[in-house]
């Protein structure tokens, strides 16, 4: 037991990977057993991760730290640790794990064992990404996520699965390649090791920082995705199987925003401040544009996919407004979006399993035949539109509030006003879709015999809904545990800005986004 306690993070990260061994030992065709084994492994992993939660001390910096030399020559370490920023993302990942597996009970019927192996592998890679405090280790986990996800889309996906898988892979890989170059360059600048701390404390010129910030941010922006780098997302979502979509929306998109808050912002604080207007502009465009494009979609899944672009816009805006409220709000939106959009994708999956279509026009009036399903969908819809009392509101409200009173972000008022229109558009596309799918008369004979939710489906949704409600009614435990880490980050940011010299800092802020890039190039 002591080894578990001393290496808790390693256990949480690698337990899913270890689960592949019993999976491979199963005979071919033992599909149910494969699903059960995977579900049990991930459930155990979730229970194990609760120990993290129990032992976590808010404000204690990185905790559950492990550090072993890996490649001595280059100063590469196997080092792990979580703080208030990563804790809840780890919890979100382990929480969604078993739910995902149970959701595939009827949906995945071919190559079940291979699917489960991919999911377990993916789980380890995602958890590792959130916990790594060494840049090479981080990069290894980061790239390792790509493979199983691309396989999940490419093998178990829909009609255009190969197109979507290749697009997803190449798009994100292109971004990561730039990040790798940036990591290597930073190492060459005298970091001495690949430790996160060494990278953070590295002294860079303004120009260097701007370029490196650009490389990191591009990799993360693709993952978020930030407008206009988002077009891989609708394709990936539409083609991916339900479990793939849920993990994509629930966790993988947060890799991008996590990367911004963990690396791009603390490594290059003045560059982050310098590019904040540009990124905020893109974020606000994403909020409005994502919502309006979601509105005109004919496929429910594509609609939910575009809604992610809109929601993640709030996260990016909150991060670059750099106030305690806005950053806490951004973190909160990440978690809340993982739950609400995750449940929406699950719900869309349930109906797809029954009708093998997701076109809005194929439905109408199904609230009469599936009252429970309609009620569950309504709950997820309300969480998504940010109804106060549910989790979505807390995050969006704090982002808007923190952005509005941001002292570092120029034109904060304008950004906030534009972003706040999201409350109108969000309700618009969700309720309109809900009306066309669920309300009115159930005319299509194919829908009249639809079965309502079964026990398994209800059991999948209940824990998610429980947390959506809890986080909306009593967000304090979440906010309090992440606050010290965020405040430390903001303080470091402010020190860096003042240290870079009054006049220079002023110049960075004064530069408009349009001219800043050219100026840096010169």
């Amino acid at each position, binding site marked *: 037991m002591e080894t578990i306690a001393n290496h808790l993070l390693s256990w949480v990260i690698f337990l899913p990977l270890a689960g592949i061994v019993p999976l491979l030992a199963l005979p071919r065709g033992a599909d149910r057993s494969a699903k059960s084994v995977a579900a049990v492994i991930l459930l155990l992993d979730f229970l194990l991760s609760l120990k993290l939660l129990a032992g976590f001390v808010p404000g204690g910096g990185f905790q559950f730290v492990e550090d072993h030399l890996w490649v001595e020559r280059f100063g590469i370490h196997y080092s792990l640790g979580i703080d208030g920023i990563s804790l809840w993302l780890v919890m979100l990942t382990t929480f969604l794990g078993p739910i995902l597996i149970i959701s595939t009970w009827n949906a995945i019927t071919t190559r079940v064992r291979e699917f489960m192996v991919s999911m377990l592998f993916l789980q380890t890679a995602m958890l590792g990404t959130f916990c790594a405090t060494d840049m090479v280790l981080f990069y290894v986990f980061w790239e390792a996520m790509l493979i199983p996800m691309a396989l999940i889309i490419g093998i178990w996906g829909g009609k255009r699965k190969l197109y979507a898988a290749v697009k997803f892979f190449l798009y994100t890989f292109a971004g990561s390649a730039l990040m790798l170059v940036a990591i290597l360059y930073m190492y*060459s600048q005298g970091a001495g090791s690949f430790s996160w701390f060494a990278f953070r404390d590295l002294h860079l010129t303004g120009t260097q920082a701007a*370029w490196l910030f650009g490389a990191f941010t591009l990799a993360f922006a693709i993952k978020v995705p930030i407008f206009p780098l988002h*077009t891989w997302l609708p394709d990936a979502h539409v083609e991916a199987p339900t479990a793939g979509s849920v993990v994509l929306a629930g966790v993988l998109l947060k890799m991008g925003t996590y990367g911004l808050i963990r690396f791009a912002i603390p490594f290059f604080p003045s560059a982050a401040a310098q590019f904040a207007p540009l990124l905020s502009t893109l974020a606000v465009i994403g909020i409005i544009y994502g919502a309006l*494009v979601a509105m005109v979609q004919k496929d429910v899944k594509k609609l939910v996919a575009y809604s992610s672009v809109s929601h993640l816009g709030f996260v990016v805006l909150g991060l670059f407004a750099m106030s*305690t409220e806005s950053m806490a709000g951004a973190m909160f939106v990440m978690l809340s979006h993982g739950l609400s959009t995750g449940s929406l994708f699950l719900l869309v999956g349930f109906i797809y399993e029954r009708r093998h279509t997701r076109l809005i026009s194929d439905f109408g009036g199904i609230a009469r035949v599936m009252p429970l399903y309609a009620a569950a969908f309504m709950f997820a819809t309300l969480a998504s539109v940010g109804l106060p*009392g549910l989790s979505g509101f807390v995050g969006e409200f704090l982002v*808007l509030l923190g952005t509005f009173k941001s002292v570092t972000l120029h034109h904060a008022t304008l950004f906030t006003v534009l972003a*706040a229109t999201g409350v109108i558009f969000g309700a618009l596309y969700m309720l309109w879709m809900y009306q066309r799918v669920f309300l009115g*008369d159930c005319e299509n004979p194919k829908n009249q015999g639809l079965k309502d939710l079964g026990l398994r489906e209800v059991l999948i949704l209940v824990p998610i809904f429980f947390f959506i409600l809890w986080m909306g009614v*009593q967000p304090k435990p979440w906010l309090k545990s992440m606050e010290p880490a965020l405040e430390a980050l903001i303080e470091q940011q402010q020190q860096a800005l003042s240290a870079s010299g009054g006049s220079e800092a002023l110049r960075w802020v004064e530069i408009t986004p349009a001219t800043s890039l050219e100026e840096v190039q010169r």
Partner: protein
Amino acid sequence: MHPITVEYLRWIVLLPLGGAAFLGITNRRLPTVVVSLVASLTVLGSFLLSAQAFFALRALPTAGRLLTDRVYSWMPVGDLRIDVSFMVDPLTAVMILFVTGVAFLIHIYSIGYMKGDRGYQRYFAYLNLFVGMMLILVLSDNLPLLFVGWEGVGLCSYLLIGFWFEDLANSAAGKKAFLVNRIGDFGFLLGMLLIARTLAGKVGGENLFSFAVMAQHTSLLAPVATAIGLLLFMGATGKSAQIPLFVWLPDAMAGPTPVSALIHAATMVTAGVYMVARMNFLYVLTPTAMAVVAVIGALTALVAATIAVTQDDIKKVLAYSTVSQLGYMFLACGVGAFGAGIFHVMTHAFFKALLFMGAGSVIHALHHQQDMRYMGGLRSKMPVTFVTMFAAMLAISGVFPFAGFFSKDEILYNTFLDSKVLWAIGYAVAGLTAFYMTRLLALTFFGKSRVDEEHVHEVHESPLSMTIPLMVLGVLSLIGGWIGWPHFLGGSNRFETWLAPVFRHGMEGEAMAHGAENAVHASAAAHAALAHGAETAVHAGGSTELALAVASLALALLGIAVGFVVYLRRLDVAEAARRAAGGRLYWLLKGKYFVDEIYEALIVRPGYWLSDIVFFRFTDAGLIDGVLVNGTARSLGILGSVLRLLQNGMLRWYAYSFTLGVLVILFYLVRHL
């Protein structure tokens, strides 16, 4: 003096919320009796607790009338402290008493009205949820928690308007209500943010959104008071159906009639008025925002009343009437008479809930017929409904001594002191109100029956569960205004005196706004007025007030007389009026000024076109994905077929070129950075 903490305040909210949760989770499994009992008893419990709070409050000295219940810390981040915390002051006491009282009556009424509906349990779950949310709204001691109730009642309104969702028109109406409200909430949200930015870090770790804290820091809020006031008022125009966002309320009549009575007449739609009155300390700092509130209120009152005159659907008449009456309430707030506005909120709750429930009784009897052209002569067949609705008609028309007389008169008098033009509009609307309400009554209950042959013999009075609430509200429509019996008629206006401590800031603030020199003087006067129960201030205007009251009473009686004569004896006059001005005026009013059509053409359609064609098809699918993403991929593909010559399958060659590539990039970076 420290406010007194009483923990039962939370139970006023939790009882109906608990009822809603219980009914929602056990959906469709409980016998009707259990559902009815759970739903109505929880609301009755809230009413009794509200009464307890009221009496506890009354026992306190005037200056210390405040009960609080801080439940927990909701959103603590950085400097921000937002609590889930309730309070009862004289204003809230009035609100919770009539909200729970009317809601209880409507629950009883619904037991009869919704009997046999297959969504019976779902209906009561929604109704309980609504009551809980409405109580959060009025009990909250801070703006964000008020916003929880504000959005919560909006959700219940959405769910209940589209309650019979098989008819797509009903669910479309629900969605429209939610979205129009969200447009208003956008303003509300920004108003809150502006308050946060203004007060952040200056209130010493307290909840800066708390009404008490904001009221203590009016000097900090003063520079941005106009912006805050207008933004919050934008929320009010959505929730309380004022120009330009009133379009959702008439459509909201798609919901079951008791819902129209409770949500869309008596309680939820008055939330905007409550909010403005609650924020009185802020509004009095900004004459501009006050003027906007007053003008919007007066115009809405007029526009809605003119539409009401031409409608044939009995519920549509009442809906426009509600919009119009809400206009009165904002007019009152806009001229600084917050107490009069709240007074009208209360009396209106009695008589308008009664009118809707009476209309529901008629609709129930006529098998869901709502068109007044197919009614008539129901007086003898439905005596209780008739008598009680007649009382409500007299009340809304402002006939002495019915409830509406007192509240409307106080509004008109205060408006007269502020602006003669607004008063003239309000006065004209009073006449129109009397006329269209008489028209409604005449077409429904008088004359020959126009009910279709099939049903005419089945028409009967509604069951007791429906008529008892009518009778109770009928009595309240008569006596409900007497607590505000004005001084000039020898009364003591206990209602105004009761609310005075809440609007004290208002009087002082207004004094400040009038300039430094007058400030001391006016503030002292305000204090003096308070001390003497506002007696001295009122005496001076006594004769004016009396004259105005007589004038409006005369106009109301005239409106009633004209209404009866035209619709019982001289229908040809109505026909002539319809054809006046080439029928254009009637066309415009009957078409409700075509506001919906204008919004559709200017906002909805262009918005959809922009999103679909410009954003989605052109920008997203065409430009970004087509040209940039796949275009890059395609050009790389062409490049690749050239470079395939290099792809010779030798691992060493690949390793070499990869290393070379990295080196080139690194070299470039080193040289140029």
